[in-house]
């Protein structure tokens, strides 16, 4: 498995495990070519008909195969080839499709404007909300500009500043999480990365407004949690969420990060949506289109929008005191220990 280049922005990027699909696609393509040839020439209508049924059969097979492949993915395959698929929709894609009238708010009023976190007012359906989202960037320039979605302290402080603004004016907060982790660098440490995340955790737990969070791609460690303390946490089907990235975990516990140890670490960390749901870390899995969200941004956005609107409306119906008590209890009960 050559997963090292999973971040490469190759337009022709196909995950390893899709190989069986590619042969089917080639067959379909050649049949379609033949069909086109037949249409030009004066071939028997009967033959075209058989080709058409063949194509239809192959397409059904393709779909079934894809469904089968995607429902049996290993944890490392999900991380390296789906959650990090170069065409996977990012927060900016969802903003375009899910929200309207996005009004961006920049800066943390202390140090700067971190491009890795995007905040602002927006409407989702009829709901007015505050968006807080990681921005990963699509092409090389954009990625470098927003640091591959790895935020600095000013990013977390910008998020908090605007979440407090939302609290003041009674807007629900929607956070979209997609980061490998908070940025480990000299500037980040100098400006208090740990303090910024810690303060966000504390303040988000007591913001007097509904908070909805969705892990849309990668949910790495404190960098993800720093904007993901919420009343309701959803997670896209092929996202991952864990205390550390599989590579980081493999490097420390297995002493080396190779595809084999990364895969072992990904399994051990229980980082898929299904596992996180079982552990009570998230509340709901948001299904992706068959074959992953990167296949169909439109449909993925539609599902997300429906889920968000429904969830926000559900939360808005509750009294804020009750909501905050539930938010606390939700966190309070997480953990697994024995007590005699």
């Amino acid at each position, binding site marked *: 498995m050559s997963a090292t280049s999973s971040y490469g922005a190759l337009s022709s990027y196909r995950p390893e495990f899709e190989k069986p699909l590619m042969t089917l696609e080639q067959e379909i393509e050649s049949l379609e070519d033949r069909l086109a040839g037949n249409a030009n020439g004066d071939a028997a209508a009967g033959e075209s008909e058989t080709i058409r049924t063949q194509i239809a059969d192959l397409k059904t097979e393709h779909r079934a195969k894809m469904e089968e492949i995607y429902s049996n993915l290993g944890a490392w395959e999900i991380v390296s080839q789906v959650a990090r698929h170069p065409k996977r929709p990012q927060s900016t894609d969802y903003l375009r499709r899910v929200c309207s009238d996005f009004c961006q708010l920049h800066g943390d009023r202390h140090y700067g404007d971190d491009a890795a976190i995007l905040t602002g007012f927006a409407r989702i359906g009829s709901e007015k909300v505050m968006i807080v989202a990681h921005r990963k960037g699509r092409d090389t320039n954009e990625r470098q500009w927003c640091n591959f979605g790895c935020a600095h302290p000013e990013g977390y402080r910008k998020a908090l500043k605007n979440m407090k603004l939302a609290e003041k004016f009674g807007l629900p907060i929607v956070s979209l999480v997609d980061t490998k982790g908070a940025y480990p660098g000299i500037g980040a440490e*100098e400006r208090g*990365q740990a303090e910024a995340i*810690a303060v966000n955790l504390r303040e988000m737990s007591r913001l007097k407004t509904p908070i909805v969070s969705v892990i849309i791609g990668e949910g790495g460690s404190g960098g993800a949690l720093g904007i993901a303390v919420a009343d309701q946490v959803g997670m896209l089907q092929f996202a991952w969420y*864990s205390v550390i990235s599989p590579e980081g975990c493999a490097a420390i*516990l297995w002493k080396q990060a190779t595809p084999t140890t990364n895969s072992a670490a990904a399994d051990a960390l229980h980082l898929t949506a299904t596992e996180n749901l079982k552990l009570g870390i998230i509340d709901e899995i948001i299904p992706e289109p068959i074959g992953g969200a990167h296949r169909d941004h439109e449909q993925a956005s539609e599902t997300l929008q429906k889920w968000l609107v429904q969830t926000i409306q559900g939360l808005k119906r509750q009294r804020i005191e009750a909501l905050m008590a539930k938010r606390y209890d939700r966190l309070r009960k997480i953990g697994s*220990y024995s007590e005699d």
Partner: protein
Amino acid sequence: MTKRAAKGKSKRPASSNTNDASATTAAAEPAAAEPAAGAESKQTLPPATEPRQWHQVQEGRRKKSAVPEGLWMQCTACTQMIWRDRLKANHRVCPECGHHYRVGAAERIEQLCDPGSFEPVDESITSLNPLNFTDLKPYPARIEADRKRTGRPEAVLSGTGFIKGRRVVLAVLDLTFMMGSMGSVVGEKVTRAIESALEYDLPLIIVSSSGGARMQESGLSLMQMAKTSAALARFDDAGGLFISVLSDPTTGGVSASFAMLGDVIIAEPGALIGFAGPRVIQQTIRQELPDGFQRAEFLKDKGFIDRVVPRGELRSEISRIIDYCGK
């Protein structure tokens, strides 16, 4: 630093095993600061005719630490010879150069609390293996090994005690137990400590020394960060006083949650404090890190720590702050 430590070890008489084992537990660990590496011993094995099994190694180590310590050791920082009893009486701070050695939770409590005043709670809470986690070694085996080695049930010791006559709720992380990493048990015990400080209206003191969140419990460990921080929000709302004491090292998920949320944050001189460990940063940016980077004094200069206080003065500093905050 590690080079010096090795030199110090080799200078000790090879024939006597009496003075070695305890030094490796608290004092001579190299500064590792990844999130929660499993604390594995790095002792070199004596040449043996037959390969030893892992459990035999553990047995040997345990017996060794039961033997009384040698009288002298060489300071890893200034290479001066120090009398061990004097080091212990000096709160494990080198009397020559002021280097702060790491201390376990029990000894820390002895140093902080009025003699005999500490009453531990929640000692029966123990880790499960919720994810069935196995890396090079199964998680329960790591826990068991550390339990045997340290005699502690988990990486935190919490309870109530008196500091110069002032009653406090105290939680102390123990670096010798799985790098003081925070899993479900540490998260739960810290949260309970916060809740009891709230309930009994007492000042809360948490002494941190930790590599971060415990990887072996993955997402559950991550959520302990949010859990402890949420509990602190309630404590804060109720007007409680939280003094956070940071010792070497405080990194990862612990520094990015309760450790950095103190009303007053005190750090020990030279303590490594940060979010990412220096090695991770170095690998990411591929540059040499500046001198003193992520040390307590650096954080004070950057404005993230209120005071840097030598260990010998912690007791009086804490009681002084408690008096100012009227609790």
